[in-house]
């Protein structure tokens, strides 16, 4: 058994190389190409969603200006601040409830603050993330950026690291946050 490490590792690799069952390269190429199509299709759809969301927000920010799709509709209608399908999916996947978002919005959290909170969470090591408490984020990383009321809101809602990351990913607009805080 006491051979050199190089010999032993070579034997190990030789066993794996000899017994590996690999797909044909053509199958992998097909897989890669199909995935590329799906991704490009998804990006295009996402792009359309973003354009639609920007149009909706612009409608609220500038009530006199309406986009071609919104012509004739009231610019500040409640639907313009509704979450897009993408945002809903992202938040639902991380089990973020509407009540949690509404509570944050009511406490005056801005999109930028949520992003900063997510960035601070991302800096934590995996071990810290596993034992993450909102109190840790609030006390350790963002205490100086948060007002006592905002900190209380974070603690009360007990958001997890994954939920904070989802909130940042959903990138809720000011109009959407405002609409949620009114609900």
């Amino acid at each position, binding site marked *: *058994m006491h051979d*050199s490490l190089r010999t032993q*590792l070579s*034997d*190990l*690799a030789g066993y*794996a190389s000899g017994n*590996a069952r690999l797909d044909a390269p*053509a199958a992998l190429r097909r897989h890669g*190409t199909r995935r590329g199509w799906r991704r490009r299709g998804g990006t295009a759809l996402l792009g359309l969603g973003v354009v639609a969301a920007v149009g909706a927000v612009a409608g609220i920010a500038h009530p006199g200006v309406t986009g071609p799709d919104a012509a004739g509709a009231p610019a500040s209608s409640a639907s313009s601040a509704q979450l897009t399908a993408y945002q809903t999916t992202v938040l639902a996947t991380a089990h973020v409830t509407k009540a949690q978002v509404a509570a944050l919005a009511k406490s005056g959290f801005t999109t930028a603050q949520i992003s900063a909170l997510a960035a601070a969470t991302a800096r934590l090591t995996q071990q810290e993330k596993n034992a993450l408490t909102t109190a840790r984020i609030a006390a350790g990383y963002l205490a100086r950026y948060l007002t006592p009321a905002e900190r209380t809101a974070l603690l009360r809602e007990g958001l997890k690291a994954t939920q904070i990351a989802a909130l940042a990913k959903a990138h809720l607009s000011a109009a959407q946050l405002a609409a949620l805080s009114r609900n």
Partner: protein
Amino acid sequence: MPKADDFDEFYATTSRRLVGQLFAMTGDLHEAEDAVQEAYVRAWQRWSRIQGYHDREAWIRTVAYRISVNAWSKARNRLTAHHRASRHAEQPEISPDLLTLVSALRKIPEPQRWVIVLHHLVGLSIEEIVAETGAPAGTVKARLARGRKALAPLVSDFDEPRSPRIHLAEQSRETIAHA
């Protein structure tokens, strides 16, 4: 050479070797197969760029390694490997010696294991490992030292070129002993 032919030839000449290296890293053949194949799929998606790389194999190895250590991918790969395993015929038995080595390797942390594989199996120098992993040279040396220490009970030597200073010291000791 057409793009697809070039990819196929590269795959044919490197894939089994890379599975061997990843197997030494993961200790799981199906996981190694899946990580390597996934890395090739990703390589194909960027083949026009990767085709021109000086060391394409290092790119695949790095991507496959990242796939294998990524926790989420790991769970997914395990599931895929489980499905694949159920389709596959039984794998030939691994010898008890190799099994002991696999279990010893799995006991040391992943970064140390990867450095051990890169240095002792792939044959990369410290500088090359620094270039491939992006870790500082001191970190690479420390990981190598700790990994070797953990594996020391299993191996007789680590194939390192003997330092002239140590060699001279041994010679002096022998001379003194003979005197």
